[in-house]
């Protein structure tokens, strides 16, 4: 077992002529919280989405839990993994989206149980019991019969976190989880995320919440124009930014 949960080396990604990621390196240790910050369009979300292979990286090597993402290395050749294998690896990585993306046709309980039943093959009873326990954890005990459209943004995002946790992931990815929320609802979601961080979950969080990053993160990466400009401990990155770009960025968001 390696110490690193995520090890990205020289990751590059292009959309047409646009280079979204240019040789990015990222190391995330087990049980640590890593925050990705940077202006919009800097490639933070793309990097996050490469980690569970929602996007294919074009170059570089990406390891999650010691295994190559999307490929298998044999005899110096990269064999693309079968889609069933990719699905299985994805099921071990939880993802929370900016726009929640709860299944609109399912109520809260079914949203949480569908992955456990259909992907992990749990029995319905076991899945429901687990879902209720998670709803207690995110503080939404009495909402299990509600549909997503009947919930506030903050409640939807907490359900989305519960849905991801239901799969018992070894790694959680958060893609700007509070950016679509009304300001007064941000706190309830960050609270759940802090709890999760304290429980020892390995987390990678793309965020604009500098307060959260400072308080919770073990390390912070600042991306700009597809390059990691600066990284390190929160104190160092947020309080003593070396590069001019990070200084600029922080002066705008803080």
């Amino acid at each position, binding site marked *: 077992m390696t110490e690193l949960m995520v090890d990205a080396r020289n990751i590059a990604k292009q959309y047409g002529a646009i280079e979204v990621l240019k040789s990015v390196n990222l190391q995330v240790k087990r049980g640590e919280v890593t925050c990705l910050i940077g202006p919009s369009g800097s490639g933070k979300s793309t990097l996050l989405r490469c980690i*569970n292979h*929602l996007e294919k990286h074009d170059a570089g090597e990406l390891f999650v839990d010691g295994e190559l993402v999307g490929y298998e290395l044999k005899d110096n050749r990269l064999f693309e993994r079968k*889609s*069933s294998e990719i*699905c*299985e*690896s*994805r*099921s*071990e*990585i*939880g*993802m929370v*989206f900016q*726009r*929640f*993306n*709860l*299944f*609109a*046709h*399912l*109520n809260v309980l079914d949203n949480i149980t*569908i*992955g456990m039943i*259909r*992907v992990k093959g749990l029995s319905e009873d076991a899945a429901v019991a687990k879902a209720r326990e998670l709803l207690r954890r995110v503080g939404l005990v009495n909402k299990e019969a509600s*549909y*997503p*459209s*009947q919930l506030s943004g903050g409640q939807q995002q907490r359900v*989305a976190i519960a*849905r*991801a946790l239901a*799969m018992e992931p070894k790694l959680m990815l958060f893609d700007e989880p509070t950016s679509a929320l009304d300001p007064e609802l941000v706190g309830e979601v960050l609270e759940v995320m802090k709890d999760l961080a304290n429980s020892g979950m390995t987390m990678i969080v793309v965020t604009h919440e500098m307060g959260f990053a400072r308080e919770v993160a073990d390390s912070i990466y600042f991306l700009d124009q597809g390059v990691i400009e600066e990284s390190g401990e929160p104190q160092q990155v947020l309080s003593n930014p070396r590069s001019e770009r990070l200084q600029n960025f922080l002066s705008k968001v803080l």
Partner: protein
Amino acid sequence: MTTNGDITYRVVPVRHYGRWVAAAVIAVFGAMVIHTIFSKVPTGQVACATTNGVRSCHGVMEWRFGWDVVFQYFTSPLMLKGLLTTIELTLMAMSIGIVLGVLVAIMRLSPNRLLSIPAWIYTWFFRGTPVYVQLLFWFNFAALYKVLAVGVPFGSAHFFTFNTLSITAYVAAVIGLGLNEAAYMSEIARAGLISVDEGQIEAATALGMTRAQTLRLVILPQAMRVILPPTGNEVISMLKTTSLAAGIGVIELTGAAENIYASNYKVMDLLICASLWYIIMTTVLSIGQYYIERHFGRGALRNQPLTPIERLRRDLKGIAGKMHTTRPGVVR
């Protein structure tokens, strides 16, 4: 009415005199239509009878719309058999249409051109030719191929052969209507599939669902809300389009009516008789459609809309309340 120094006013609604006139004109016209539909006209014959030694004669009258003949044949065995055939054709053609249509739509949306282009050609061809011509085509298919066989491509060994002369009018109607319907259903299904937010697909993928699971558990159930209303229209439309099968000799509802009036010349009466059956069936389908749409609309709206019966109840209460609305005011 004064309570505690406050006053309650009676509210007088605006009178819409123009609407009243329009409603009156329409009411009179409607009464005329109903009157003529249920009127009797002289046949030109005279019937005479002798009662108590007194002989009296009067002109014989008959229903203008031949209601007695309509209801004489309404439940006749031939018409009921035709009705059953119409229902069978509708069910089978729509089943083929929906299953094949969804399949074609999925192919059409595939990133693989070898799947999407044939799907496009299918829709292009079957939408581009009249359905009646297609029915005649399948009925006369034996003129093109005497046998259909499954075997080695370009080889001579056959595992299974089918004599195309055994394609009856009924089979030709099912195939023709079904294949034609699939072309329309594929466009409806495609519209539904692409209406589902991409975030839903990403969420399902991130949970580790396969493409097939994502389609079946996440995309299709949500696409249903968009697919169902036009599909309901298609079922209703198909119910009536099956009458074209009469053209190749299938004795469905219209064919049965034609057969009967060919022998008794009561053309209008039997067409009315068949039409009554069609309208009864479309009414039943419309009601079913409403409740199915309601079921699949779950989650799309914060609150389910009222059913027509619930709305009627609310409106009746409302009308009683409207007669004497009051609102509180303040004494000046």
